């Protein structure tokens, strides 16, 4: 049984619940091999203003486009709804997709999303025909507002971008899952090690998006494979039904009292 067979993302059936970022890899070949090893069918890209004397990108973007994975461009660097909406329209034209990973940062230190600007941008982009993947916090009410303006997918952070701290607030994530059962939930950002991704899947999240933990590993290809299995394991564990934690010990071996006492 492949536990990913039931995954439909924005009306697209996918076999993989692993969305992979493409930044920071040591070479285009390693990026290519990591995408293959991850099994990811959705990969992220960014847009950048053309710089004076800026050279090429050594073929990274071409590798990504040739991977066959669906492209999910982001609005990284935006600080207002207006900027994000404009950049999203550019991404749609440039990359030929109406999918957009919506990022609107409100704090420079934590790169925490700005919930007000994010919601305003999301509402406009939904009206403009985009499938919006908002990168948001784990705050339930602001998440609900994003749903209210038409988002079918939410991508709450596990921890600040690139921090590798894992799921800082599992309770909040669990609450999101419980309160938004029909929304596709993807943990995005903060994942550091494969067990973090497994934990997200065990919580019932639909998928995981990560970049740095793979790109900055000593062996990115090996790490991509490790995350692939961790995400699959977490999903299977969720489906199989997890043992509820409790405070007291419960003996598992069905002995009858102590072995030498009658």
């Amino acid at each position, binding site marked *: 049984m492949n536990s990913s067979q039931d995954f439909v993302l924005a009306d697209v059936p996918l076999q993989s619940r692993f969305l992979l*970022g*493409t*930044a*920071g*890899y040591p070479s285009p070949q390693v*990026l290519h091999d990591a995408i293959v090893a991850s099994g990811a069918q959705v990969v*992220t*890209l*960014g*847009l*950048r*203003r*053309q*710089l*004076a*004397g800026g050279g090429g*990108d050594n073929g*990274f*973007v071409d590798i*990504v486009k040739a991977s066959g994975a669906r492209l999910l*461009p*982001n609005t*990284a660097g935006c600080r207002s709804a*207006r900027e994000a909406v*404009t*950049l999203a*329209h*550019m*991404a749609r*034209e*440039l*990359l030929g997709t109406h999918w957009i990973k919506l990022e609107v940062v409100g704090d420079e230190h934590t790169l925490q999303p700005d919930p007000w600007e994010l919601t305003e941008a999301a509402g406009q982009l939904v009206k403009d025909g985009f499938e919006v993947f908002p990168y948001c916090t784990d705050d339930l009410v602001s998440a609900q507002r994003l749903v209210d303006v038409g988002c079918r997918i939410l991508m709450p952070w596990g921890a600040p*971008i*690139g921090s590798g701290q894992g799921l800082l607030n599992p309770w909040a994530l669990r609450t999101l899952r419980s309160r938004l059962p029909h929304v596709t939930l993807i943990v995005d950002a903060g994942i550091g090690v494969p067990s973090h991704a497994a934990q997200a899947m065990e919580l019932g999240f639909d998928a995981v998006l990560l*970049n*740095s933990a793979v790109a900055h590993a000593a062996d990115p290809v090996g790490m991509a494979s490790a995350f692939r299995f961790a995400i699959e394991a977490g999903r299977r564990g969720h489906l199989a039904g997890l043992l509820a934690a409790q405070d007291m010990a419960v003996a598992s071996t069905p002995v009858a009292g102590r072995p030498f006492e009658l």
Partner: protein
Amino acid sequence: MSTTVRATVCIDGATRALHDGCTLAELLSELGHEPQAIAVAVNGEFVPRALRLTHLLHDGDQVVCFKAIVGG
């Protein structure tokens, strides 16, 4: 009377002298850009590819080109 206007092109930060009635498509062609390889904003507003041919540039316009890059 001069028939040139000036538009600031943010690709290289230089001010380029443009002939009167210069369109965005002409400017991008002069700069050697593949039309499909960039997305363009003028004064912060996105200009769709289909409108570049008819989008006239004016003195002081800020033209910014974007390209795809890797990202998370």
